[in-house]
């Protein structure tokens, strides 16, 4: 046994923001006092991998020679976190200590390893597999060895050989050439997309015809929506229906969204790309950081988890003022920038905001069944917690009344989500066609200039809207919002010019702020 050192270099991936970046795991073993040191800005979970790797190697039936081992994670100036470096470290240690002789011509330079090891040598799933695989492809790697549970998530990426492994032994056999694992079958997105899982179906909702219609309009135009109603009127249930009537995620959207969920570890083990639009419903005690993203090592927040999906804020006025104000940037730009001393990250966050609130602190203002016991001042204070600028971003406001018992028992089945979704999809196609040369793709995103360009009114619609502005003391902003919503209603009808009935219906989704916020 000589004293000259032995060096191994294995490629892995880390995640910064929502992007993966290559990490070289360099392992140097040399004679001397036995010990292991990990350098290259590892955090605690990376430093602890030393012990996991040790145990996993021994439990895979390989005896380690006592060596002084130095492990460097390059680039050395980026902070590494998470247990996904366990696998490349183990491979590096095995090679550097000659516990494993790679097969002739094994290309370590074109292979990426990542995975968490358990003490008995099994390989566990890691967070962020999708962004790591995507950037592995972008950097020209050819093979990715990853935990079996992450394989499906990565299966839609073309041009890569994905090798799912479940134990360290399999990896050892793969490298020494004795047995090559079965590569993950390449799956197209359409294949995954067979079933759009609907958790709550619209047909389960009794009554609430006005709110149902408003949901359909909101979904068709991508409009944000606020529901005001007494407790128990079904606001939450309505909101949960929304992902089911939105068009399914496109491949690109799915990649974006799955990537964020992957980083946060929100994907269920063994699941592939997300198909159903995400529904994120943070509790009203949520902090700004949990909502927007951030923390010591920046992580995406709830608004990013809702990217391409629905962010549902129940009890809107109970959210802290700071949290609500922080929503304005993502609502405006569809992206949040999180700046921390050590970290700077941007997360995509273009979502539909569905908010729900009671009409007053006790909840029963305007209820026919129970007396409200709030004073005018209390109600005003409660409503004032939702600031004007935030309200300005919400196109549809709808009142939801409690459903009378006889209507709950009403046997007439309501429309199912699938029926509504078909109409929504048709309206979305109309918009896509109309805005194919623009930077936006839904009616909700129209700016003032685009409103003038695309929201053409028939003569009587114009007369009606002018009368409505007069009668309901509507602001110019409110007027523009009505136009956008009217555009969507006309799209649902498949008509190019907004007729007076479209405009009149759109006005109904505004009169709420007349009643409450005047």
């Amino acid at each position, binding site marked *: 046994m000589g004293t000259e050192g032995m060096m191994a270099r294995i490629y892995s991936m880390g995640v910064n923001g929502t992007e993966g970046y290559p990490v070289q795991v360099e392992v140097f073993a040399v004679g001397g006092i036995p010990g292991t040191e990990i350098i290259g800005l590892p955090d605690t979970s990376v430093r602890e991998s030393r012990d996991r790797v040790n145990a996993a190697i021994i439990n895979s039936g390989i005896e380690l020679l006592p060596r002084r081992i130095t492990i460097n994670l390059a680039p050395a100036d980026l902070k590494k976190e998470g247990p996904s470096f366990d696998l490349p470290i183990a491979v590096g240690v095995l090679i550097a200590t000659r516990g494993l002789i790679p097969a002739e011509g094994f290309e370590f330079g074109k292979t990426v390893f990542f995975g968490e090891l358990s003490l008995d040598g099994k390989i566990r799933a890691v967070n962020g597999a999708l962004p790591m695989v995507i950037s592995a492809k972008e950097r020209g790697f050819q093979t990715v060895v990853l935990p079996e549970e992450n394989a499906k998530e990565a299966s839609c990426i073309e041009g890569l050989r994905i090798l799912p492994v479940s134990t360290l032994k399999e990896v050892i056999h793969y490298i020494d050439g004795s047995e090559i694992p079965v590569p993950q079958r390449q799956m197209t997105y359409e294949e995954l997309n067979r079933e759009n899982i609907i958790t709550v179906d619209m047909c389960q909702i009794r009554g609430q015809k006005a709110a149902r219609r408003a949901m359909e309009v909101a979904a068709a135009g991508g409009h944000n929506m606020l529901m005001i*109603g007494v407790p128990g009127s079904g606001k939450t249930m309505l909101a949960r229906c929304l992902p089911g009537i939105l068009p399914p995620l496109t491949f690109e959207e799915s990649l974006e969204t799955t990537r964020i969920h992957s980083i946060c570890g929100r994907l269920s083990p063994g699941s592939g790309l997300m198909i159903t639009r995400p529904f994120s419903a943070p509790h009203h005690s949520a902090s700004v950081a949990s909502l927007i993203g951030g923390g010591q090592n920046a992580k995406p927040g709830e608004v990013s988890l809702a990217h391409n999906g629905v962010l549902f804020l129940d009890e809107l006025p109970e959210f802290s003022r700071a949290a609500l104000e922080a929503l304005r940037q993502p609502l405006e730009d569809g992206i949040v920038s999180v700046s921390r001393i050590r970290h700077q990250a941007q997360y995509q966050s273009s979502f539909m905001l569905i908010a729900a609130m009671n*009409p007053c602190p006790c909840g029963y203002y305007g209820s026919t069944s*129970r007396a409200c*016991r709030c004073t005018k*001042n209390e109600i005003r204070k409660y409503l004032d917690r939702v600031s004007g600028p935030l309200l300005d971003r919400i196109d549809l406001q709808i009142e939801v*009344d409690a459903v009378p018992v006889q209507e709950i028992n009403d046997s007439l089945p309501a429309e199912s989500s699938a029926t509504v979704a078909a109409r929504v999809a048709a309206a979305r196609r109309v918009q896509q066609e109309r805005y194919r040369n623009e930077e936006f793709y839904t009616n909700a995103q129209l700016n003032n200039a685009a409103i003038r360009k695309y929201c053409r009114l028939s003569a009587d619609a114009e007369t009606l809207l002018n009368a409505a502005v007069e009668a309901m003391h509507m602001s110019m902003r409110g007027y523009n919002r009505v136009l956008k919503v009217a555009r969507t209603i006309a799209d649902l009808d498949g008509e190019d010019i907004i007729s007076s009935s479209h405009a009149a219906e759109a006005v109904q989704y505004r009169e709420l702020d007349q009643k409450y916020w005047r």
Partner: protein
Amino acid sequence: MDYAHSVFDAWLAGGEIPYDWLIPLLHQYGDSREVFDRFVIRKAPMEDMIPAKCRKKLTELSADGPMQTCETLMEKHGISSMTILDEDYPACLRELSDPPGILFYTGDLSCLLRRKRVSMVGSRTASYLGLRAARTIARDLSKNGVVIVSGLACGIDAECHRGCLEGGSPTIAVLGCGLDQDYPQENEPLKKDILSRNGLLLSEYAPGIKPLGHHFPYRNRIISGLSEILILMEAKLRSGSMTTVTHALKQGKEVYAYPGDPVSPMSEANRTLLREGAGYFTTAKDILEDMNWLDNQPLVGQNIGCSAPEEPADSTEAAVYNALLKGNLGFDELLQTTKLIPSELLSTLTVMQIKNKIEALPGKRYALRQSSSC
């Protein structure tokens, strides 16, 4: 010490001496300056029928500092005062079993001389319909020369004052605190309106006295005492407005209750009163007739004859109209009755709202608008 009469009134009223001490005291000494002179300056009250406890309290009443503050407050807010011995003092209050000995006021006393006065009260947290009805009825009464008396509270009270001002007659507000207090804060603009339209603010509480909870039920006897008739617009069973009703009944006044929504918990007290025999009315005309205040003059005000809104021509509008004739309805109920589809109904509702034929109530409910908007 030389102060105006009213400052001595404020000093005496500031002691919050019960009326059964205060009134004999005033009768005996003539005015509060004399009381001050006897008890504070000369410290030699006459041996008389004033109970010892009362004498003790009076001699203990601190004088100089508070009187100066009172003087500035009264000057700043234009507050004057009168005692039960003054000629201006409203005769109807004199007849009460527990009249206020001293009254503070700002504004025009002449509205106390008007014959037609109606007191209107109701809950602070009233339903939308109740608020609207209060305003309409107060306005129509006011148009026919009736002065409305109420308590300047938020909710029904404020709507009654507003309605009265819209109708052109002055209105009287009886407060439960010193007239200098900003209470209720949100009705400050209303106070100014009342004063600018020859109205009157009244209180038995000296300037500087805070709006304490127990003042209000006691103050209510003045509200009911100032008119021949009390109208309860809308109240729950356990409500401050009911103390006004109790006072009115004790004082032998006519009590009327607005029928309101027959199922709403907000007008529970109205239903109880009506069952117990309170006067029934739906329009200002009913009141004017009952009180014999018609004076052979043509009635003013559109709601006066309770004309039903005209029937619309359009078929969907007619469907909505006919459905709402039976009372206000929620959106889903409307859908069921009219058999329209949601989008159709929504746009019809907007059109009718713009035409001012219906109005939207909280909770996605709709009602026919009575053709009374003036």
